[in-house]
């Protein structure tokens, strides 16, 4: 992450978010170079989810702007380049795995949707249940399908809100494989997380948010990986 970069994958400029008179986010500003993997850390209530929602265009900042490769995130063409994984699985229970993916394939206007859907189903090991209704899936199967949905349109920027929290081992393996694949292809990833070790191992950069403000934004350092509490002690409140 730098303050001067030729092509910036994600840039946050002076973002404030107010709930009434209460500033949940205060003057957030940072930029993310393409190809980085950013781990967004912070305690509960610090503002991670609020910030991620704004980055995803799901919520409007009270002040400031967010741009993805220079274009405002609320524009439709920009949203095609973003993939978002929130807390819920974002799948329709009454539709089949295939129908769910086809819905999003159409909304994202993916070329050759049938082939791409089959490919994602294979990568998440759900091809044999492609016509099964989601309501009959096990928890692990739903999680893998949710992951398939996020990567379906091959986004350039991925925003993940605590992705490892609710996943079982198999789903984590699938997710990690896909993430590393994206990273190798130069895509940008921003994930908020509690699972410090898993996130820090994959991350190239780290940002820490506390009480709505960014208190650290920079490269991942060895101290962070060796001692997961280091960051909180050095830059946090205690």
């Amino acid at each position: 992450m730098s303050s001067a970069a030729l092509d910036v994958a994600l840039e946050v400029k002076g973002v404030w978010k107010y709930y009434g008179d209460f500033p949940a986010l205060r003057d957030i500003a940072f930029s993310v170079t393409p190809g980085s993997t950013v781990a967004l850390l912070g305690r509960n209530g610090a503002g991670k989810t609020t910030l991620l929602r704004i980055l995803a265009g799901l919520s409007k900042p009270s002040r400031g702007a967010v741009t993805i490769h220079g274009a405002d995130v609320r524009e439709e063409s920009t949203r095609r380049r973003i993939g978002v994984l929130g807390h819920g699985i974002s799948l329709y229970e009454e539709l089949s795995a295939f129908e769910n993916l086809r819905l999003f394939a159409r909304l994202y206007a993916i070329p050759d949707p049938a082939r791409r859907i089959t490919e994602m189903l294979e990568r998440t090991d759900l091809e044999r249940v492609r016509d099964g209704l989601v309501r009959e899936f096990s928890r692990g199967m739903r999680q893998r399908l949710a992951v398939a949905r996020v990567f379906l349109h091959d986004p350039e920027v991925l925003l993940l809100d605590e992705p490892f929290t609710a996943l079982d081992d198999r789903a984590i393996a699938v997710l990690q494989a896909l993430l590393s694949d994206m990273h190798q292809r130069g895509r940008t990833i921003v994930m908020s997380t509690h699972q410090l070790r898993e996130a820090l191992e994959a991350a190239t950069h780290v940002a820490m948010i506390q009480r709505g403000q960014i208190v650290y934004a920079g490269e991942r350092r060895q101290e962070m990986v060796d001692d997961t509490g280091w960051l909180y002690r050095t830059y946090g409140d205690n």
Partner: protein
Amino acid sequence: MYLRQVLTIAAKDLRAEVRTREAVNASFAFMLVILVLFSFAFDPGNSEISIPAIAGGLLWIAYSFAAALTLNRSFARELQNDCLDALLATPIPASALFFGKALANFALLLAMETVSLGVFSVLYNVKIRAQIWALLLVIVLGTWAMTVMGTLFSALTVNLRLRELMLPVMLYPFLIVPLSAAITLTSDLLNGIPLGGDNILWLKVLTGFNIIFTSLAVVLIDTVLVG
């Protein structure tokens, strides 16, 4: 492109609804129950009460109750599994999402209403064939008004605690205008008075309401959904 997005959403809603039949079963049953109950409220055999005179009111009360039940679920079903966020994160404009859902609701309501119309004409011995096309036109216009307002309120109340109660309470005052127009037109048609002359006023009111409030919905939906 926009149209394709609208149709994708509409198809998704219809497919999900047809599979579970949650809203349709409840609304349809409710509509039939109301039609039957009305016969206990007064005596259909009593020649003093002219059925065709109040038929319009009867029919549209039944229609509007069913509409409130159906429309309530429109955006509410997106809350499960956080689907609404996923939809809003896609390139679809909020107005396309709104139209897609409105279209699906519209289709469902029309289907239920046409069947109920048949049931109604049998139960109360009201002749509908003579003016059937005009009748269908009025039903289409009136249903669109209910659909637009209901879908908009469904979006507005999606995150509220007492959504199921709030939506009908807030919605019905907005339906007074289209319902009174539809009721007048329907009663006239069922009494053998064709569209034209004095009636045209109500047709204009209904159309004007539809145009103005559909435009308002399109303009305001982004604020309501994203903020």
